[in-house]
């Protein structure tokens, strides 16, 4: 276990340190001037208008929620896929039922127009 996980942890630390070093390199070496107008958010050269924190369409939340649902259901497929040959016919039919239930939910959200973009 340790032999499998330690290298990943080490790579994580090395990558994080590398990113930190590279970014601080440009902070220290890069030239510095007063920000002034440069500090404004970019809006094609004209003065920025209004605030950024405005409501945006609820559809994006819908997609995120549906993603979580379907992604968890996908995860259930992995253990079965690994031992599918041992389970044989029994596992196959079980999974068929599972996927059918999944599809019922899928067609329900399609019917309700949750994935409609216009």
């Amino acid at each position: 276990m340790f032999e499998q996980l330690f290298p990943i942890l080490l790579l994580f630390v090395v990558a994080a340190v590398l990113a930190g070093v590279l970014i601080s390199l440009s902070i220290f070496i890069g030239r510095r001037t007063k920000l002034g107008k440069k500090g404004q958010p970019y809006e094609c050269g004209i003065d920025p208008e209004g605030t950024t924190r405005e409501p945006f369409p609820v559809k994006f939340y819908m997609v995120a929620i549906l993603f979580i649902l379907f992604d968890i259901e996908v995860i259930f497929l992995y253990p079965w896929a690994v031992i599918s040959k041992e389970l044989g016919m029994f596992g196959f039919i079980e999974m068929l039922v599972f996927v059918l239930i999944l599809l019922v939910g899928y067609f329900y959200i399609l019917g309700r127009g949750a994935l409609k973009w216009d």
Partner: protein
Amino acid sequence: MSLEFFIVTFVKIALLIFVLLTACAYSTYMERKILAYLQNRVGPSYAGPFGLLQPLADGLKLIFKEDIVPDRVERITFALAPVVSFIPAMLIFAVIPFSSEFDLFGLLPSPTEGVISDLSVGVLFIFAVTSLGVYGLVLAGWSSGSKYSLLGGIRSSAQMISYEVGYALSIVGVVLVANTLSLTEIVSLQSGSLFNWYIFKQPLGFMIYIVCAIAETNRAPFDLAEAESELVAGYHTEYSSMRFSMFFISEYANMLAVSAVAVTLFFGGWAGPFLPPIFWFLIKILAFMFVYIWLRATFPRFRYDQLMDFGWKVLFPLALFNIMLTAALEIL
């Protein structure tokens, strides 16, 4: 744990980081050069012979650029976002077998496995780490305090999580055939003959995988995250100097990563005749990178509703169908 294990691990990680950063730098050169020839131009040609020093010049220039932190940003998340998108891009390579056993021309005391961590649940690890990549974009888009960044961030996060489902489903097919989640085992199962490659057992799965992979990495024709004509540069509009190049590096590292995963899962990994395994691995990845660039030169960008419809209404059912078909063929 022996001291040797720590040293060997560290050497492998150092090598990986070095090769990966060089590969990222030279993918930009490769992209510019190939794109140029496809468009009847010459591409970078002043820095060094054939412009080969161009990536170095670009890198140095970015380091010496001013690091601008605009007024309206959320400072902590703004600083964190580039790092958050950089780390997962590197982490994917931890479980990808890049060679058979090797001893680095006799430099290491005993032959070592050609993978940094032979994780028994490698496929799940890849799946998990790829999902983490989206956090970098969301944080960058939200913390920048710019409208273009916010729109780019929201768009690309919705896009990435939509294609994540198809991505995960397309890999289930390979697991069904191989019956293991370990990537080294998947590679060894494919060795021996060209026809053992899983591309021949999973053609549909591979098609779904490659489409989702391109969408996952936000590349043309799915590059709505940075649709230049409408969003300036999307989620990294407000970033400059090395912070910007972190996003740039992680984009290319992600491209290399999904190519490496595709090579491992569908094209036999490092297996190949005559040449040393590492060369086969690199050649196959290069072929994928070429396809990536070719696609960019060929296809116009999708419209956003087409993109979401395609992900949810075509790829998702198709991937489920592929799984049940594979299961039926394997079990019955």
